């Protein structure tokens, strides 16, 4: 049996919708492995004695173990192992930047392509969703310890912290501002990358652990953190994300049909504007639309614009392609679909028509100088290079910053100069007793998995504190 197998250095490719097809629909782009493909890919795993992939995972998923279970055709076991560490595997398998985390550390990466951990994770999660009869009835055997914890925000940080605390017997209530739970997973990341049904399934799993999710609750308005502390909550975990959009601050930016990426994506994903008029929320893309920015959000917005019917979609970015913060895979998907990249280009002002609608943007060219604080080469304007692009709409995707609603209504919560909550990274503790914080609110806009890691660490620390095993500083 122990004959040494020859390792295939290439990963099993994942089937995808063709670019011509997918740019016209909101269905998922990557179709996921079949059972055979998953087993073939899983069999490439070296099952290292000292697996370094695990160290690359912010929630320490037992990667070789769940892959082994796939090889053994024991899917229920694969699910059990995966979910032991990660309550949201269907989400992570789709949107985590594995190439800079677990897969980067894979020993196979030294010789060839690392094992496709993300795709296998997705496969296991999708298998579980297709086999609801297998997933055990959660929550029933968890005994309440009678202690109440409030969590603000139902994004990945909040959901993870809630699941971990519920599994330990806490009575957890999540307070969510919007009318659905999931945070950016629901309102930001588009359907074609992360189907909302997948998110809903994982939210339902968290609920099945006994977590109560109260929607329509804007904390700081309807109730405050201090009131929670007075009214019987033993601890609070703040996970409201970094939801406030940044703008370019150039003339004409308030013209009609200029959107923040948050607004554009919220209308599209959360409010289902792509189904207007069946759904009531409208959106305008016109024929030509420009998206400003070079991150994942810009890619998502541009791809939504294509699917909403725009004929020409531009991504306007002031540095060059290599400096783009977007994941390589998403950048490639975006280009394949036909989005036009206008690099080393910066906008100066928007120009409107008589009715105050945007009709053009004036841009100028940039060149790259010496590296700046971020280590990327600084873009410098090239004088005399102004030119005009005619557009019908624009999307500003420059990033987001923390929303001040909670800090401004919570006594004694210290902030950093970026407006994020000052937080101890290892534990999630804040300057305020019995208040923890994690996710984008603590770090500024980051990733799903880093938010989940923070939720997990906070759950561990809250548990230790409430059991009297640790004290507040």
């Amino acid at each position, binding site marked *: 049996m122990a004959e040494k197998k020859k390792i295939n250095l290439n990963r099993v490719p994942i089937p995808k919708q063709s670019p011509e097809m997918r740019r016209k629909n909101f269905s998922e782009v990557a179709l996921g492995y079949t059972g055979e493909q998953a087993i073939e890919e899983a069999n490439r795993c070296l099952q290292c004695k000292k697996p370094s992939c695990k160290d690359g995972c912010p929630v320490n998923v037992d990667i070789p173990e769940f892959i082994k279970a796939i090889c053994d055709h024991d899917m229920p076991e694969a699910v059990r192992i995966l979910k032991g560490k990660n309550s949201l595997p269907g989400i992570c398998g789709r949107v985590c930047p594995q190439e800079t985390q677990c897969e980067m550390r894979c020993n196979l990466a030294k010789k060839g392509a690392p094992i496709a951990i993300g795709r296998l994770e997705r496969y296991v999660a999708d298998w579980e969703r297709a086999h609801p009869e297998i997933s055990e009835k959660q929550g029933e055997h968890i005994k309440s310890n009678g202690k109440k914890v409030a969590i603000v925000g139902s994004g990945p940080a909040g959901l993870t912290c809630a699941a971990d605390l519920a599994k330990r017997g806490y009575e957890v209530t999540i307070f969510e501002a919007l009318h659905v739970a999931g945070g950016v997973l629901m309102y930001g990341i588009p359907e074609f990358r992360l189907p909302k049904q997948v998110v809903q399934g994982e939210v339902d799993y968290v609920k099945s652990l006994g977590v109560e999710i109260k929607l329509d609750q804007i904390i700081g308005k*309807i109730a405050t953190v201090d009131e929670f502390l007075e009214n019987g909550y033993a601890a609070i975990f703040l996970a409201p994300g970094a939801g*406030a959009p940044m703008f370019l601050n150039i003339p004409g930016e308030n013209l009609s049909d200029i959107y923040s990426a948050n607004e554009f994506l919220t209308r599209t994903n959360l409010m289902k504007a792509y189904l207007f008029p069946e*759904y009531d929320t409208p959106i305008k893309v016109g024929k030509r639309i420009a998206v400003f920015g070079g991150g994942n959000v810009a890619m998502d917005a541009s791809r939504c614009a294509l699917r909403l019917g725009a004929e020409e979609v531009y991504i306007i970015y002031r540095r060059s392609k290599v400096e783009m913060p977007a994941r390589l895979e998403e950048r490639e998907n975006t280009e394949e679909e036909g989005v036009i990249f206008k690099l080393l280009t910066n906008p100066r002002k928007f120009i409107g028509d008589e009715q105050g*609608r945007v009709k053009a943007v004036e841009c100028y060219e940039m060149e790259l100088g010496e590296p700046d604080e971020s280590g990327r080469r600084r873009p410098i304007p090239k004088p005399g290079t102004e030119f005009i692009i005619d557009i019908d709409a624009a999307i500003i995707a420059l990033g987001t910053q923390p929303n001040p609603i909670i800090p401004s209504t919570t006594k004694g919560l210290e902030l950093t100069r970026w407006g994020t909550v000052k937080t101890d990274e290892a534990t999630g503790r804040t300057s305020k007793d019995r208040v923890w914080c994690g996710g984008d609110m603590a770090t500024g806009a980051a990733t799903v998995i880093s938010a989940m890691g923070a939720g997990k660490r906070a759950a561990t620390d809250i548990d230790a504190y409430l059991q009297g095993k640790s004290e507040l500083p």
Partner: protein
Amino acid sequence: MYKILAKEDLTSDIHLFKVEAPAIARKAQAGQFVIVRSGEEGERIPLTIAGWDKEEGSVTIVFMEVGATTRKLALLNSGDSILNFVGPLGRPTEIEKFGTVVCVAGGFAIATIVPIARAMREAGNKVISIMGFRTRELVFWEERLGSVSDELIVTTDDGSYKRKGLVTEPLKELLQEAEVARVIAIGPTVMMKFCSLTTKPFGVKTIVSLNPIMVDGTGMCGCCRVSVGDETKFACVDGPDFDAHEVDWDLLMNRQRTYLDEEREALRLWETSTTRF
């Protein structure tokens, strides 16, 4: 789900809902608003809070049927439920003892100025209210606004009831005759703009409640951005109240018209679908 405890038709197309929302009722203050979504396919729309009752745990909203969304909302009755009801949002109106305060309201906004007039009076101000309507049939809450004001002036555009003309005319006379410390104007955007133009030469601080299109109402999308004193503000969190003399009115009106075509289309579809029954 938020239960409608009572419904009142104030005119043929202006309706009042008293909604069960105890947590919001506990926190509500004059000048704040809620975001409402009536059903699964519905949009999120902002509606100003017209009243609240902490004991009963209710919040009152008043709205006018304009597009498909508000028409659908109007079909709900006492006993039905609203899917989402979020608040209280925005900053409350600044209430202080200023002296003489003139409260001007047009159309359905009469309902939203009542709690403000009341709070102003309770703070020790002399409150003079002006309410304007297009015509006699649309007049409502004359007594109610009167009961929280020291003086009340009613106008109709066509002169079919009380004083003929626009609200800006008695407003100007008051500014000429009396020592007015502050004006609060709420209503259709054009009305607020003209109130602002009327008070500006007198240098009397004027507060308006802006109603741009909104989505989340929490400062997350920036859809509600307005320009005030050449600065971009988010009406849902920085407002909705702003200094009228600083507002860029044309920008606000342009942005309010962003989806005019889509709204017409939705209304047309709605009308054809409802007439089929």
